[in-house]
């Protein structure tokens, strides 16, 4: 049933592959509106996104039913648009999630869908396409297809360049991806330029001390680390960890205050919350663990900094309700503090954190 018979297909329908746009040979049996060039692409699409949106595609790809009045027609059109918008967002978040989980392969079809719907809805030269391009570029970078990533990025850059009203946040994202591209191409000069732009735009959009700005600092620090400018990288890493510390400590303080104010009110558990979405949490973990690795490699020089990062990680995992990880990092911090014989104040602060985590853990289990 999966094989198509071209003559049986409704008139005017494009028979090209959903993934690569080549002439199609197969059709999805569930929705009968999606075509593929072969089994490989069909499987890839199914695993990535098609399983989730299969039925939603039907109204978009079949011709509109006949409406009797102009009013109904308008209503129908509006509904169609709304469906498309929903699909755009849905595909975008799915793709993003795959990217943060490191499943670049799976992210591509989802991102492609998002891009395609965007083109349908907004036209080819709209700024709305940029996020989708950036997703695709990131996925391609992850897959090591630098050329493809470059193509997508230049497309995005061109779109941004032509549009007059593009938010600072989008600019920042674009430059960050360009920076990553040039890092991958080992062109550190360009990469630094783009990352600097990224930080500038992010600062304009969110402020210099925002966690969304920290990504730019982090990548810039990596470049300097690779260039063996260690003191520079060090100050930048410190900056990133300070940003995260400020953010997480703030949340942590609020939470612990709530704990102390109403102890055991009906034994109710407090919802730990980082205030971050999944993507940001994944980013936080990635950034902080890599900083930790770097710090640990030079741990004998500045154990204070390692402990600082460890503490941030403890707080992060604690707020993410991952108490086993939190405990692990906490123990590491404590042992390091004891080993290096740091001041008592530091040790007691870590102890306190650990005890809080363990009580929380017991209450849950």
């Amino acid at each position, binding site marked *: 049933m999966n094989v198509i018979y071209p003559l049986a297909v409704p008139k005017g329908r494009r028979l090209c592959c959903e993934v690569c746009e080549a002439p199609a040979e197969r059709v999805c049996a569930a929705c009968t509106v999606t075509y593929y060039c072969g089994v490989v692409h069909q499987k890839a699409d199914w695993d990535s996104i098609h399983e989730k949106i299969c039925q939603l595609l039907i109204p978009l790809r079949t011709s509109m039913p006949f409406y009797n009045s102009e009013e109904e027609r308008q209503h129908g059109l509006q509904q169609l648009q709304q469906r498309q918008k929903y699909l755009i967002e849905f595909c975008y978040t799915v793709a993003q999630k795959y990217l943060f989980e490191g499943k670049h392969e799976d992210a591509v079809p989802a991102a492609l869908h998002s891009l395609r719907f965007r083109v349908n809805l907004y036209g080819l030269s709209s700024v709305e396409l940029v996020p989708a391009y950036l997703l695709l570029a990131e996925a391609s970078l992850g897959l090591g297809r630098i050329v493809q990533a470059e193509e997508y990025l230049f497309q995005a850059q061109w779109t941004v360049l032509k549009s007059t009203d593009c938010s600072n946040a989008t600019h920042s994202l674009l430059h960050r991806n360009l920076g990553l591209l040039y890092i991958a191409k080992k062109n550190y000069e360009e990469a630094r330029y783009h990352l600097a732009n990224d930080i500038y735009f992010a*600062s304009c959009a969110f402020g210099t001390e925002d966690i969304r700005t920290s990504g730019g600092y982090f990548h810039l620090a990596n470049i300097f680390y690779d260039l063996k400018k260690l003191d520079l990288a060090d100050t930048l890493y410190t*900056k990133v960890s300070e940003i995260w510390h400020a953010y997480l400590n703030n949340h942590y303080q609020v939470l612990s205050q709530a704990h102390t104010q109403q102890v055991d009110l009906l034994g109710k558990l407090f919802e730990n919350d980082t205030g971050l979405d999944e993507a940001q949490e994944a980013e936080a973990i990635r950034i902080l663990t890599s900083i930790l690795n770097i710090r640990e490699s030079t741990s004998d020089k500045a154990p204070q900094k390692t402990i600082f990062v460890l503490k941030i990680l403890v707080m992060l995992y604690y707020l993410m309700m991952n108490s086993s990880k939190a405990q692990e990092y906490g123990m590491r911090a404590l042992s390091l503090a004891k080993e290096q014989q740091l001041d008592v104040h530091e040790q007691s602060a870590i102890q306190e954190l650990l005890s809080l985590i363990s009580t929380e853990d017991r209450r849950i289990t």
Partner: protein
Amino acid sequence: MTTLPPLPMTRPKLTALARQKLPCSSRKIPRSQLIKEKDDIDHYLEVNFKGLSKEEVAAYRNSYKKNICVDMLRDGYHKSFTELFALMEQWDALREAARVRSLFWLQKPLEEQPDKLDYFYHYLTRAEDAERKKSFEDVYNNLYALACYFNNPEDKWVRNHFYERCFKIAQLIKIDGGKKEAEAHMHMGLLYEEDGQLLEAAEHYEAFHQLTQGRIWKDETGRSLNLLACESLLRTYRLLSDKMLQNKEYKQAIKILIKASEIAKEGSDKKMEGEASYYLGLAHLAAEEYETALTVLDTYCKISTELDDDLSLGRAYEAIAKVLQSQGNTTEAIKYLKKFVKIARNNFQSLDFVRASTMLGDIYNEKGHYNKASQRFQQAFDTTVELMSMPLMDETKVHYGIAKAHQMMLTVNNYIESADLTSLNYLLSWKESRGDIEPDPVTEEFRGSTVETVSQNSEHLEELSRYDKSSKKFLLSTHFVQYTKYNLILQTQKEKFHPALDNLNTETLL
């Protein structure tokens, strides 16, 4: 028909590359090579067409502010960037606030002042470099340079920001024995002083003074820092004590001023010491501790004579005279005031001269030496005329008028008390001529200042009542008792002698 052979053409490298890439070219080029060639073309463009380089395009397209920020960041100067960014945001916020309050804010936005941005870039990045190398002295120097650059009225808050940063950095500098820290304290003191927070300013100046004690540090203009510290500290103490005196907290004020004079003594600058004791004397005077005031002022006197400083000597005499006057020791006071008058005259200090003469006149007036009083007042008045200052002239005029009235009162009293025909005639003729002419007060006073005829005096009385109208009631009210006495005598004569005086009385009563 023969086709012409193709023209031999030398193509530049770029076109050659582009030609090869064209779809019509026979050669098949693999994709990877195409990309490599694209990079080549980019590079070629960058090298050979200067105006087309990507960076230059970016520099042209973007605002100068952004270019500066990006330049900072790509070299890793993130702290400078953060600082500059925060400053620019504050700048905008201030502008916005000024706009909301509908004040006319003359400052252009920072983006439109590239030279200022250049300064920021230059010094901030250097400071950060130095900070990374842990050479805090360089950090301080760079930040201080920025503070100096913004040392103008409209950018004061920027300067203050950098003073504060300097202060923080200076505390980390240990090798120079605290010179930078002292300087930073000085700047912070200045900052608070300008802000009107005298207590904080005094604190910083005290620290500054302590740090510079016994050191021979000099600032850029060659002045000794210790002396500078003493000066600033004294100034702040004086302002503080002024405020306290206004609130009648005499004890506090005196305590602070004693501290000030001790510091001045340590500073071994005679002039400053003198100043300190002068203000201490004034404070004692305000607190009504006359004896101590006198001893303190005496030292000031001595110091001034030592320094051969006439002006401060004059001030000393004046202050001493005031103290003596408050004590009731008028003869001594007169002695000092005469000295003061002399000094003021010799140094052409007209204002001082007026003040001294007025004070002298007042004392004479109180003592009943009306002739002398009016003489002094006249001198004062003449000087004010020279000075052409209207408010002062009015004031001395009133003083003069009062003295004249006093002077005249005696004569009138004599006439009335003698109660014979000739005196009555005198009185009558005075009364008649009184209202006739309205003489110009200035010329009249010039002419008739020493003449003691009754008719002349009447004019002065009229004048007096006129000035009384012009809000000088308080002066007259002190002499009210005498006037009422005078008026009563007139009433017993059953003659309404003196409408002017009547006028005056009702007005003073009102």
